[in-house]
C-alpha cells in the first residue's frame, strides 16, 4: 500500500512466477507467469478443465503450488501469516454454501474474521464496514433473512458483501455468475465493476460467458491446457482465431452495439445461414 500502483508494470501487488499447480500426480498448470493488473479487473477465460479455477485458488493461497511461487507485495504468499494475507486479499470460492439458517447479516459479519479476536466480535469498525458492504451490494433489506432462502442473485450479492466486508484491496472471484440467469449475472458484474471503478479494488475473476468477460474486464487472460495462450485488452484477445484455438469454437466476433467490447456469436453446426457464416472463422474441428 506504500508503493504506488503500477498499472501494467511487472511488479504488481499480486504476481505468479513459474507456477506449477496440480492435485497429487495430476499436473493442471505448468510454468505459468502472471502479473495481475493493479486497480483493474482481470477476467480469466478458457475451456472447462484448463486450470483457470486452479490458478485462482493458488493466487488466493487455497492451493499450495507444486513449483514456482505466488508473490503478494513482493513476498511469498505461502510464507506470510494467514491472517495478514486475509487482510490484503479476499477470495470467493465457486458456489459457496452457507450453513442452514445463517442470516445475511451473520454471513457478511464473517468477513470481519481476520480483523476480530475472541473478545472483539462486533466493534464499531465492524459494524460500520458490514453495514456499508451490505448497503453497497443491496442486501441491507435482507439482513435477517437466512442465506439459504434467498434467490441465486441475492445469495451471490450476500457472499460478495462478505468478501467486501473483509476490507481487502484485492478480490478474487471464482465464477461469480454461475447458476445465475442473464439479468442477475449482469447485476452481479455491474456490482463487481463498480468495485474497481468507484473503490479502486483489484479484481481477478474466472468467467464462462465470453461476451460478458469482454464487456467487464480491463484485462483478459485466455488459458488452455494449463498455459496462458493470450492476454491483453479484450478486443485484442477475443478473435475468431483465438476462440477456435482455445475453445475449438467456431464463432463470429462482432462489435458490441452498446459498449466498446465485442460480441461472441457461436456458429455451431445447425440453424446457421451459410451465407452469413462464410469466411468468419477458421474452424479447427467439427463440421465444415
Amino acid at each position, binding site marked *: 500500500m506504500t508503493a504506488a500502483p503500477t498499472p501494467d508494470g511487472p511488479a504488481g501487488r499480486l504476481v505468479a512466477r513459474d507456477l506449477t499447480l496440480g492435485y497429487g500426480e495430476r499436473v493442471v498448470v505448468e510454468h505459468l507467469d502472471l502479473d495481475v493488473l493493479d486497480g483493474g479487473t482481470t477476467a480469466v477465460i478458457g475451456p472447462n478443465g484448463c486450470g483457470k479455477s486452479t490458478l485462482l485458488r493458488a493466487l488466493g493461497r487455497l492451493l499450495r503450488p507444486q513449483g514456482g511461487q505466488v508473490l503478494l507485495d513482493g513476498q511469498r504468499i505461502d510464507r506470510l501469516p494467514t491472517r495478514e494475507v486475509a*487482510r490484503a486479499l479476499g477470495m470467493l470460492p465457486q458456489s459457496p454454501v452457507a450453513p442452514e439458517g445463517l442470516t445475511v447479516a451473520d454471513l457478511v459479519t464473517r468477513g470481519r*474474521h481476520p480483523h476480530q479476536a475472541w473478545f472483539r466480535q462486533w466493534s464499531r469498525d465492524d459494524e460500520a464496514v458490514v453495514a456499508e458492504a451490505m448497503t453497497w451490494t443491496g442486501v441491507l433489506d435482507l439482513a435477517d433473512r437466512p442465506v439459504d432462502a434467498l434467490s441465486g442473485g441475492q445469495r451471490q450479492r450476500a457472499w460478495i458483501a462478505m468478501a467486501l466486508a473483509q476490507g481487502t484491496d484485492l478480490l478474487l472471484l471464482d465464477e461469480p455468475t454461475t447458476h445465475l440467469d442473464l439479468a442477475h449475472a449482469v447485476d452481479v458484474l455491474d456490482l463487481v465493476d463498480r468495485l474497481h471503478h468507484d473503490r479502486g479494488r483489484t479484481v481477478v475473476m474466472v468467467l464462462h460467458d465470453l461476451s460478458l468477460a469482454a464487456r467487464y474486464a480491463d484485462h483478459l487472460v485466455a488459458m488452455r491446457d494449463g498455459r496462458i495462450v493470450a492476454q491483453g485488452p479484450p478486443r485484442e484477445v477475443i478473435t475468431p482465431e483465438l476462440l477456435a484455438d482455445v475453445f475449438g469454437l467456431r464463432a463470429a466476433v462482432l462489435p458490441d452495439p452498446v459498449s466498446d467490447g465485442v460480441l461472441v456469436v457461436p456458429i455451431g453446426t445447425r440453424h446457421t445461414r451459410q451465407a452469413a457464416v462464410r469466411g468468419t472463422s477458421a474452424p479447427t474441428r467439427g463440421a465444415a
Partner: protein
Amino acid sequence: MSAPPVLGRRPVRLGPVSTVWRPRAVLVPVVLAVVALVLAAVDVGRGDYPIGVLDVLRILAGDGEQADRFVVVELRLPRALTALLVGLAFGMSGAILQSVARNALASPDILGITQGAGVGAVALIVLGGGALGGVAEVVGPPVAALVGGLLAAVAIYLLAWRQGVSGFRLVLVGIAVSAVLTSTISYLLVVADFTEAASATVWLTGSLNGRGWEHVVPLTVVLAVVGLLAMTGGATLSALRLGDDSARALGVRLQTGQAAQLGIAVVLASVAVAAAGPVPFVALVAPQVALRLVRSPGPPVLAGGLAGAVLVVGSDVVSRTLLPVELPVGVLTAALGAPYLLYLLARRTRRSDA
C-alpha cells in the same frame, strides 16, 4: 451518543471487548443450566433414603444434619455431578465435531471414538481378567477407555486424511472404523467368561452406578481446561462452517484449526466415556436440540453441552423415579433424546411448509 443499532442487532461494548447481544444465545444456556441443576438436586434426593429437594439444597449450602450430609455429599453427589459433567462433555464434543465436519451425523458415537474407548475398556476387563485387582480394577477401565478413544480418533483422522480432511469423508471413514470396533467388542464379549462379560456389558451400556469423587475430579479438571479452550474457538468454528475454502480465505489456518478443534472434541468424548461408559446418543442429539432452541447457524458448543447435561441427569432422574426398575442411564438417553429431536424436526418442517 450511542449510534442506533444497525442491521437489527444490538452491540454490547466495553472498552476493547465487544460482541453482539443475542437474547437466545444467552437465555437458552441459562435456562438449560438451571434445569440441569434442579434435576441434579432431585437426583441427589432419590434413593433408598429419600431426601427432599429443599433439604438437598440446604445441605449443599452447608446446613443440615450430619447423617444427611454424609449421604448427600459422599454417596449421592458424585453420581449427580458425574451425570452433569458427562452430559456436558458429550454435548460439547458433539457440537464441535458436527461443526468441524459440517455434518449432523459427526458425533463421537457415529465416528467410532466411543467405540474405540469401549474396545479399550472391554479389552482390559476381559483380557486383563483376574489379573486386575485393587486400584487397577477401578482406575484401569477408564484409563484404557481414554487411550482407546484417542487411538481410534487418530486412526480415523489419518485414514480420512487426503490433503486435508473433508467432513463427509470423515463421517464415512468413521462409520467404517466404528463397525470394525463394534465387531471387536462383540468378539471380546464372546471369548470372555460369564462374569467378565456381564461387567463389561454393564459398562458398555453407560452407567452412573457407584460413581464417586474419583470419577468427578479428573472429569472436572479436564472439562475446566479443555472446555475453556473450546469456548475461545467459537470464531474459528463459525468460519469453518462456511466451508474449507471460505474459512481459509478468511484467515483461518485450516489444518491447525481443524486438528485443534477435533482434538478438543476427542478428549472431551474420551473423558466422558472413561467416566460413565459410552452413554449413547447424547453427543448426537444434544447439539441438534440446542441448535434448534438457540436458532444459531451451527450447533452451539456451550448450549449443546448444557443440553447434554440436562439429558443425562434427566434420564437418571426418570430412571430412578418413574420406572419400577432402576435402569442404567444409557438405556434412557436414547429413549428420551430421540423422540424430542424428532418432535423438533417435525415442528420445524411444518413451520417452513406453512
